[in-house]
């Protein structure tokens, strides 16, 4: 119609666009931030509800009686664990067989790319023990998993005890329509990864494991239990999994429904729900809960043993028992009843959980924000990038007004591409170096410097990162010609579009990561030109770079968990976070580290190049 094809109107639109570009961008940015903060305001959220018809309401009778016996088993398990100095495989096999399960073991081993200082392990060898309760009358086509980790020291003894108690009780019931697999995994996530890879016959992370002798059909849902005390005051559910993937919201709804039915205090992110959403403190409580979830999701780590199930499309969650200073204690029998109720309901499932949301944020356990509500916050940030791109396009399309070097104008189209290509290639090569060098050259670093391997890796990464900052001054010596005015515009256009696509794709998969990166990188992308004051913008650019975003996130995360750290401790924590991120990538296939090293960092380097464009 006339709006875009009429030249007068078009010119008017274009002039409007160029005039109002900066104000609209600023407005969009603040609107995005306000939208995001408003997400946890209770009237804007929805109450959670059960979407799956087959699970229905909490209409079952839980009759698990043997909490005390489970605790006795837990003590036995602890004693055997101490005696063996690891996983008491023989005792576990014998106990599970005594309860009527079909028991199998799996050995696995993995040499980490560099030692893990948080968990103090380098060469990991272990055994998983699992017992299958066969459904009495059903074909062996579907399964449910209940797992408890075998942790060093005295942790999680009660979880294993309760698991064995539940196994004994479940074995006496006739109404199971799916096989139930009771799994005790050693070395938490590594053991779980080995078991899952063995179960699904995939080998994505280079681990060495013995094949599984017994199998139960396709797994519909899984729960991982972490219980380290005889009584609990509250139960916490952990949903965030690998790469920020979340289980179906129905699993959290099921947990919450049973918590309400049985009367156990249930939390998410370890924070108790408050009812006063209209007060400032109530609102900030909800904001903090949601921010915790956002940060946990953005890290791409699996925050419980359940996180690795999610990529196989198995809905899984971790239930942690927390014992804090509170009057009302819940005993093991009640926790067992809650799990029994959940498993009876999961037993009724006919298909995988798919009716409820897969993408959501939870400011509290009874309210949620779905993707349709939180995505506009990111959309507004993406709009800023698109507006900037349009602005640049318009500027590129009007060369006659700036006629300083007529020669450069004619050559612009031919040198434009080349001048853009060089910074692109060099940035991505730096990114590739950031990805590969730290792990590959750790031995060399250890030889030359007095550091441990882990520190070597982390410090190499930081060194490469900082080294990349020196690039623009050096690459310009390599390019024969000088950069032109059009050159940096073309580069910025390409960089802005590249960033938009990158952040868009990231936000689709892991909204939190995409949003946090967008919050810092979009202002960078918008305002950087060669003409802004160099020193100030350089400082701002460095502060808004991914590495510093990570540093600030570490501090904010500690603040949100009400365990603020000093700068020294924070720095150590930051280094360990980097090493954990690299380890997660090599061990479980987390994509945060490659994403940042290979894509986000080069993109940021392009903007750094533009800043120092001559």
């Amino acid at each position, binding site marked *: 119609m006339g709006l875009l094809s009429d030249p007068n109107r078009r010119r008017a639109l274009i002039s409007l666009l160029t005039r109002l570009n900066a104000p609209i961008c600023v407005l969009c940015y603040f609107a995005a931030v306000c939208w995001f903060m408003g997400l946890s305001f209770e009237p804007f959220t929805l109450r959670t509800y059960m979407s799956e018809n087959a699970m229905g309401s909490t209409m079952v*009778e839980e009759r698990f009686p043997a909490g005390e016996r489970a605790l006795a088993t837990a003590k036995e398990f602890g004693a055997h664990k101490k005696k063996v100095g690891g996983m008491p495989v023989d005792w576990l096999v014998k106990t599970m067989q005594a309860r009527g399960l079909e028991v199998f073991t799996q050995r696995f081993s993995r040499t980490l790319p560099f030692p893990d200082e948080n968990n103090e392990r380098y060469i990991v060898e272990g055994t998983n023990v699992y017992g299958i309760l066969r*459904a009495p009358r*059903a074909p062996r086509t579907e399964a449910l998993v209940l797992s408890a980790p075998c942790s060093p020291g005295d942790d999680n003894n009660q979880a294993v005890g309760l698991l064995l108690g539940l196994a004994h009780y479940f074995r006496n*019931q*006739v*109404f199971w*329509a799916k096989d139930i697999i009771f799994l005790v995994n050693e070395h938490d996530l590594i053991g779980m990864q080995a078991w899952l890879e063995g179960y699904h016959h995939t080998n994505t992370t280079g681990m060495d494991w013995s094949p599984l002798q017994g199998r139960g059909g396709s797994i519909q849902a899984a729960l991982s239990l972490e219980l380290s005390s005889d009584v609990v005051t509250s139960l916490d559910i952990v949903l965030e999994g690998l790469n920020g993937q979340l289980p179906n919201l129905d699993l959290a709804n099921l947990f919450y429904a049973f918590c309400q039915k049985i009367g156990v205090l249930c939390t998410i992110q370890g924070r108790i729900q408050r009812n006063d959403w209209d007060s400032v403190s109530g609102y900030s409580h909800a904001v903090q809960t949601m921010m915790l979830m956002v940060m946990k999701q953005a890290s791409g780590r699996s925050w419980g043993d359940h996180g690795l199930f999610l990529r196989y499309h198995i809905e899984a969650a971790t239930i942690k028992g927390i014992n804090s200073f509170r009057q009302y204690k819940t005993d093991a029998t009640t926790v067992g009843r809650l799990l029994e109720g959940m498993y009876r309901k999961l037993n*009724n499932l006919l298909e995988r959980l798919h009716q409820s949301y897969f993408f959501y944020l939870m400011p509290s356990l009874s309210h949620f924000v779905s993707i349709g509500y939180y995505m506009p916050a990111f959309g507004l940030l993406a709009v800023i990038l698109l507006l900037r791109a349009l602005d640049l396009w318009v500027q590129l399309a009007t060369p006659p007004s700036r006629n300083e070097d007529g020669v450069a104008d004619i050559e612009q189209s031919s040198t434009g591409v080349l001048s853009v290509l060089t910074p692109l290639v060099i940035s991505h090569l730096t990114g590739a170096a950031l990805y590969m060098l730290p792990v590959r050259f750790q031995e060399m670093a250890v030889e030359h410097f007095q550091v441990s391997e882990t520190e070597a890796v982390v410090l190499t990464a930081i060194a490469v990162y900082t080294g990349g900052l020196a690039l623009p001054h050096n690459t310009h010596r390599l390019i024969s010609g000088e950069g032109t005015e059009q050159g940096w515009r073309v580069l910025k256009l390409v960089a802005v579009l590249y960033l938009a696509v990158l952040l868009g794709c990231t936000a689709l998969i892991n909204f939190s990561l995409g949003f946090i990166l967008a919050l810092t990188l979009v202002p960078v992308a918008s305002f950087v030109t060669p003409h802004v004051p160099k020193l100030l913008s350089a400082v701002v650019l460095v502060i808004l770079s991914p590495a510093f975003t990570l540093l600030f996130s570490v501090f904010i995360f500690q603040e949100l968990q009400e365990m603020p750290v000093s700068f020294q401790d924070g720095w150590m924590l930051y280094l360990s976070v980097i090493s954990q991120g690299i380890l997660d990538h090599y061990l479980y296939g987390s994509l945060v580290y490659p994403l940042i090293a290979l894509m986000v960092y080069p993109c940021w380097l392009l903007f750094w190049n533009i800043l120092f464009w001559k």
Partner: protein
Amino acid sequence: AFLLTFLSAIIMLIFICFCVHFQNTAGQFFSSGHTNNWAVLVCTSRFWFNYRHVANTLSVYRSVKRLGIPDSHIVLMLADDMACNHRNPKPATVFSHRNMELNVYGDDVEVDYRGYEVTVENFLRVLTGRLPPSTPRSKRLLSDDRSNILIYLTGHGGNGFLKFQDSEEISNVELADAFEQMWQKRRYNELLFIIDTCQGASMYERFYSPNIMALASSQVGEDSLSHQPDLAIGVHLMDRYTFYLLEFLEDIHPASKSNMNDLFKVCPKSQCVSTPGHRTDLFLRDPGSVLITDFFGSVRKVEITMEAIHLTDPILQLEDGPMSEEVQEKTYSYVDQLPVSEIIHQKPKQKDWHPPDGFILGLWTLILLVFFKTYGIKHLKHIF
């Protein structure tokens, strides 16, 4: 002398009334016009959480069998096997009351269409009789023009449709057309249609064939609710309407004289939450004169009498049995669609003749007047 006349007049009157009463009984004896009973009981939903639909159907099956309809005359269609479902904590049972009071599955249930055989096509084929020659007799509805058929449907429904097995639907238009096919092929004498689904009343809106009475558990726009969950089994056991229907039917025995008006009162809104509805405009008899056992039972009518019963003229005129409606006087040929409305709105078929009530009253008044005229009013005080 007058006393004698008076007494004989009274005896004559009593005798006339007696005859009339006999005529009434005789009329009632042959009033319904059916000679055999059939039942088609369909549960259309599968999956464990639809346990209550199977329990609904089985409880109606149980009542119908108890009241005398044999398995050979019942077509039972159950879309899923709840008794042997892996999730059933009490295998081989289907309970309709909480705490496992009543097992409607029993040990002699005979399911004719089971599992995936319960489809819209099979249901319509059963109704219309268009089955392949290889279909066994137990899967056929072998009704004739003297059959009273009870059709009971339950499952998940909506405005104008009933869902079969999560993959297909039958609409109210299809159902009405199927009944019209049955009518034209003389496959029923009278039909009682009961449906217990959400918005069930929409299913009988489109019926246009005569001699159909319909009941539904809820009106359009209302949901039919389930009755009670059993925590040990973990599902809802029955729907409200059928639960109260079962309670009502448990009081019916083969000699009951309860009629359809009592059936319409089953499960009022206070118990059912939804408003049950019924439709009787297509039915030619007065619902008050229709016995429950006309449809739910298979009553062999036997009455021992020492008297000779004179069948009144209209009955004698026809060769093939006691009363018959005017429609069946015609030869068996397909009728046009249009005259159907004529049939519905024609004058009601003639009942047995009995003296009008006013006549008896006038007779007594006359007797009293004659008495007082003869013996004088002063004797009045001797009487009162």
